[in-house]
């Protein structure tokens, strides 16, 4: 980006190289997106995360900044994902009685959800004429990205693209979730949370905490972990059924 005054130009070069700028940009974009979402009546189609990501990508494109430079600042936020994932044990502990009571339904729904996610993704992409590599990369889309990348790699897909598709799936899940729940008339917060965590991993979990409630968040976290674990085992034989 070029600015008319050389001093400003130098300042920009200095600022854009320090992590401070992109850390601040991330926080400001998030606050702006949350404000905008509230202004629009909390519409699920412009979920704050999706909006924040879009705002930041627009900013980076305008300032001609690459992702690696951005991540230098944003990594401080990204790092907190680790301890936050660990912290999911707290709501899970709070709702342990209900989880214990629902253990069999939880496991069965999880398997049903994974089979639906994988067969519809693989079958749909094959019908639409996607390349074999794309089909394999799409198959683990509902799983949290570190696991999805591992699965894609093992199957012969593209790990970095798998991570990207996982993120798009997460955003889609946040947008579609409330609509689908109304369509199939499911109101139980535990069921909604569990479904969001299964179909949209961490995005769905975050959505459940922020828009449904603590119980939904606990079940979403549980679904996210369980789906990741089970998919690693269920997916390879399932994809094999499609002759891939």
């Amino acid at each position, binding site marked *: 980006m070029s600015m008319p005054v050389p001093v400003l130009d130098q300042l920009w070069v200095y600022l854009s190289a320090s992590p401070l700028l992109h850390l601040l940009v991330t926080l400001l*974009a*998030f606050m702006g997106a949350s404000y905008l979402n509230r202004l629009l009546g909390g519409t699920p189609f412009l979920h704050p*995360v999706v909006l*924040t*990501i879009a705002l930041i*990508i627009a900013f*980076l494109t305008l300032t001609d900044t690459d992702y690696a430079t951005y991540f230098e600042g944003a*990594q401080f936020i*990204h790092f*907190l*994902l*680790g*301890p936050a*994932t*660990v912290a999911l*044990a*707290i709501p*899970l502990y*709070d709702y342990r009685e*209900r989880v214990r009571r*629902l253990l069999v*339904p939880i496991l*069965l*729904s999880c398997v049903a*959800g994974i089979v*639906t*996610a994988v067969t*519809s*993704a693989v079958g*749909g*992409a094959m019908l*639409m004429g*996607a*390349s074999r590599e*794309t089909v394999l990369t*799409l198959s683990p*889309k509902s799983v949290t990205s570190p*696991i999805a990348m591992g699965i894609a790699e093992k199957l012969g897909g593209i790990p970095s693209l798998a*991570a*990207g*598709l996982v*993120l*798009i799936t997460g*955003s*889609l*899940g946040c947008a*579609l979730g409330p609509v*689908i729940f109304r369509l*199939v008339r*499911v109101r139980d*917060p535990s069921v*909604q949370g569990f479904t969001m965590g*299964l*179909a949209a991993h*961490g995005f769905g*979990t975050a959505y459940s*905490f*922020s828009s*449904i409630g603590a119980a939904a968040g606990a079940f979403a976290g549980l679904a996210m972990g369980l789906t990741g*674990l089970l998919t690693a085992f269920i997916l390879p034989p399932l994809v094999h059924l499609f002759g891939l």
Partner: protein
Amino acid sequence: MPLIAGMSVLLGCQFLGEILVHGLQLPVPGPVVGMVVLLVGLMINGRVPKGLRTSGEGLLRYLTLLFVPAGVGVMVHFDLIKADFWPIIVTLVVSTALTLAVTAKVMSWLTRSIPKDPRDECREERP
């Protein structure tokens, strides 16, 4: 000090999780195993220490923000996505909608006979 103690517990569990994943060659990320470690710890301890609850719930309240840096990473894959754009987008939308519908239906059918927790009923989804 309780906040620092709480954060240390979270990071300690993540650390143990990473050690277990690398030691046993598990196919799951370290933090997920760390979550299991903390859950087992809480079950043994019998309650959630105050500092741990404050720092843990603070992090979870802003969980959406924590996904933003990874989410911006989609921009790196624009070219790959463009190559198979329609198959990818249509498949993702249809498959995600189907997964949500099937999972929600199956689970609410399987749990229909189990009494619900009255604490939940007051909390409705936002319009």
